[in-house]
């Protein structure tokens, strides 16, 4: 029985160790500490995705690092959260260490950052992908007009489809994914009108952001029904779609980051969310003493907060003519000639303007 007790002790210690190792302290790579005394301290707290999530957190950290490199005397640091109960302690750890700006990456941290902003009125906070109303005067909310990049992605799909059928796979329905869905559908409708034909969009929600098998199955079904290009805004579910596109040698469109490297012959384009640019811009503003708190800042094509890749790879996949047309549409959106819809009501209204 002695062995059993000792082992349970070791096991529980192991569990505690694993739990602790995920969260909190000890993650300061890239911080130019040891240099001259930091004049501006900028910290970010990741959500449960972790710092290397190939998405939001990683993008934000890249932006922060760039900000740190450009500005001598700036200290940047991140803390990883391994579970939602880490959010508040992590945010408060930065705030109590007199950080000038503290980033909360992801809407999951909305409640935590609201509480921290109240507890530390002298510290600037910023949250990505959520709008908190009323906004505390020391909190900046950062949103992305994903409908604008989705519109371009939909427009490209309309120009490239040969079957006149395209698909959209959504994660869990909600306002953020609505922007992708209706932006995409509007873009398809715009392209279809330009070409003078009808293109149908098959929309299906996976009700999951994680089940890749489900994404693969939905893509398989959509391709079997004749769609030849599918766009997914569904996290890991979308990765199942990319795998299916590769297996069937069909086309698809990625999201958040340039997903072309996952299937270079199948990913046509991606609806990018450039969290890094937003983080860098706002950090710069706060450093220069600009008043950015108490408001919601929304980034779109105009300021490069969202977009599509114009890389050699994208030109190879889409063709120079399609890329040129997409650039023209992008300019129209920037100039306000086209206002992409972001939900069902605005989409229906948008359709009437097309006729």
């Amino acid at each position, binding site marked *: 029985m002695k*062995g*059993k007790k*000792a*082992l*349970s002790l070791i*096991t*529980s210690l*192991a*569990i505690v160790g*694993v*739990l602790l*190792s*995920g969260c909190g302290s000890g993650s300061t790579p890239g911080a130019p500490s040891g240099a001259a005394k930091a004049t501006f301290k900028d910290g970010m707290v990741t959500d449960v*995705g*972790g710092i*290397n*999530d*190939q998405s939001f957190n990683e993008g934000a950290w890249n932006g922060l690092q760039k900000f740190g490199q450009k500005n001598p005397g700036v200290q940047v640091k991140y803390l990883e959260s391994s579970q939602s109960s880490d959010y508040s302690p992590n945010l408060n750890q930065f705030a109590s260490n007199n950080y000038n700006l503290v980033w909360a990456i992801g809407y999951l941290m909305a409640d935590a950052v609201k509480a921290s902003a109240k507890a530390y009125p002298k510290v600037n906070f910023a949250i990505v992908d959520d709008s908190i109303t009323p906004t505390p005067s020391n909190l900046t909310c950062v949103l992305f007009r994903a409908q604008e990049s989705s519109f371009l992605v939909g427009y490209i799909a309309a120009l490239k489809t040969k079957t006149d059928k395209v698909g959209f796979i959504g994660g869990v*329905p909600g306002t953020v994914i609505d922007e992708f869905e209706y932006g995409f559908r509007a873009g398809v409708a715009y392209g279809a009108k330009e070409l003078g034909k009808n293109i*149908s*969009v*098959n*929309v*299906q*929600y*996976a*009700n*999951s952001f*994680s*089940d*890749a*098998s*489900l994404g*693969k*199955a*939905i893509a*398989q*079904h*959509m391709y*079997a*029904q004749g769609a030849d290009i599918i766009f997914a805004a569904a*996290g*890991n579910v979308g*990765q*199942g779609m990319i*795998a299916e596109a*590769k*297996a*069937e*040698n069909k086309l698809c469109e990625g999201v958040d980051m340039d997903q072309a*490297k*996952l*299937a270079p012959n199948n990913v046509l384009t991606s609806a990018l969310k450039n969290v890094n640019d937003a983080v860098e811009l706002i950090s710069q503003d706060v450093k220069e003493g600009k008043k950015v708190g108490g408001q919601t800042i929304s980034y779109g094509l105009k300021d490069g907060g969202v977009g599509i890749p114009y890389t050699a790879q994208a030109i190879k996949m889409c063709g120079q003519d399609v890329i040129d047309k997409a650039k023209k549409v992008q300019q129209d959106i920037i100039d306000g000639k086209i206002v992409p819809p972001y939900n069902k009501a605005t989409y229906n209204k948008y359709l009437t303007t097309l006729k």
Partner: protein
Amino acid sequence: MLISILLAVSITLMYAAPLMFAGLGGVISENAGVVNIGIEGMMTIGAFCGAAVGYFSGNPWWGFAAGGLSGGLLALVHAVASISFRADQTISGVAINFIGPGLALFLSRKLFAGSAMTKPVEHPIPTIFGSYAAKSSNLLIKAANIEMTVPIVFICALVLWFVLYKTSWGLRIRSVGENPAAADTLGINVYKIKYVAVFVSGVLSGFGGATMTLAVMNYFTQSTISGQGFIALAAVIFGKWKPHGTMAACLLFGFAQALVVLLGGSNSKIQIPSSLLSMLPYVLTLVSLVLFVRHSTAPKADGIPYVKGH
């Protein structure tokens, strides 16, 4: 219509294959009297090693084998803790579920330049019709073009069933799970049987994980394995701790998911709200559990550490 049926079958099999591997792993471990909560962790490490070895070697079958081996090795940790040191099997299993993803992440960052995801595997596990289906315009062939892992999992199930019920080895495994003391007096090496069963359980779970990264997808991310291990565990109980029952349970779950996919979508004839539709697999599972399974009894000594001479 035929295409829809074939599509339903192929989606069912695609969805269920990783679950079936892991479920079979659960069956053999629990039949030898060791509760294996750690399937999820073993699947995760198997998924990572499958993708990593598949990427570096360029051969999916090496990756698949490595996935199984890594799952087996992680299972040995569970075996040492729960068999030799008689630790609580649930706690040890939970620890495995932390170690698996943690180790996978650590290795991924080491091997893939700090990234939490592996690079895509150049050659995934082939499908039964291979490149012929991609060239063919025949929709039937496309719909029936399942991954090679599907026939493999059925062969594994057949072998496991045969071993468990038709060989003396299987009788020993089951006797160890039912009454280890009696088995011991008959000269069966209880510890050895349990060790082998847990190792094989890990290998099968690792295969399940590698199926996700080499057949369903073609690379590993942190969320590749998100709950499949627990669904497999439920399938073991649903299937009354028998290989065929567990296979059926996984297939039922996969079929329900296929229905969700085929009935969903904005150009489906009947419009059902997607959030309701997504409940279908769980509701179906619950209903069939109540209607058809009712009594599901675990092996008598399942979860109880065996102490020689007590």
